[in-house]
């Protein structure tokens, strides 16, 4: 969606509440009060932004590895097999991100599981299903403090 299609109220909704969502019983009414609109307008706008795929959710961004176990992994997939292998990987319920990237290791995915043993099992299942070795790259240290993303409108 081109950013020009967003009105000033929607832009502020996207920019101002990536981290400072009020944790009160009525967060949407509080957001509305700060923006000078009604609670119903905030709820409608958020629902339609979610519907259009501009936002994925209103909710938490979790620190990885603090709840359950997760890892980044990559496979070097022969080009003719890429779509089929990507489908197999995406179909696994433990996989939540799966991207093609420009590299010999051309398929990159994140797998999450309740614990380390289950995570190792997921990787084994994906290697068996695809017949390919996975490069397993768990996070060792997180340097980034997530403050959301500063959007530039022009």
């Amino acid at each position, binding site marked *: 969606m081109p950013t020009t299609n967003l009105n000033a109220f929607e832009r502020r909704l996207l920019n101002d509440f990536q981290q400072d969502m009020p944790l009160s019983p009525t967060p949407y009414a509080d957001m509305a009060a700060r923006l000078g609109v009604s609670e119903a307008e905030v709820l409608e706008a958020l629902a339609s932004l979610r519907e259009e795929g*501009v936002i*994925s959710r209103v909710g*938490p961004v*979790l620190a990885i590895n603090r709840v359950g176990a997760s890892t980044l992994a990559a496979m070097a997939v022969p080009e003719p097999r890429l779509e089929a292998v990507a489908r197999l*990987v995406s179909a696994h319920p433990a996989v939540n991100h799966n991207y*093609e990237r420009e590299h010999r290791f051309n398929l990159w995915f994140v797998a999450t599981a309740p614990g*380390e043993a289950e995570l190792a099992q997921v990787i084994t299942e994906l290697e068996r299903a695809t017949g390919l070795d996975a490069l397993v790259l768990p996070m*060792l240290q997180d340097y*980034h403090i997530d403050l959301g993303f500063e959007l530039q409108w022009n």
Partner: protein
Amino acid sequence: MELNVRQRRVDSTGIDAHDRRLLEQIQEGLPLVPRPFADIAGRLGMAEAEVIARIERLCGEGVIKRMGVVVRHRSLGYDANAMVVWDVPDTRVDALGQCFARFPFVTLCYQRPRRGARWPYNLFCMIHGKDRDAVLDKVVELTEACGVGEVRHQVLFSRRCFKQRGANYRRGCP
């Protein structure tokens, strides 16, 4: 498969079973209703005030990095996204990770293990930009500002996104 579990700095102290059930309920998003925490509380058999207090505590402990609107960058014209990987001397990795992470266009920055000759890179950062040139300019900016001109690195632009959703930590999920 090489998972190197012992290398990982996992800290889930202070998270109890109620917290886990709460995170399961909210990780895909809060309901868009006037009293979202009361709605969640009803599903869990908790009081609304307890739901809010637990979320505040989880934010304070860093289990929840932030609560709010989660924007999809691609939908707003941030079409170029690159994972930049660096082969940084182990003695400099923390300092350089912290240097990279200070830039607003770096949206993730992690140390990960090397995997021999197959994969020599140990520092990863994610950069979003409106186009490829914008991303490459930012890589140059990082290189100059953090003094890593001599450090081997690669820029892996994303092509297709096959799957993207919130993490799913549920035990026994289908």
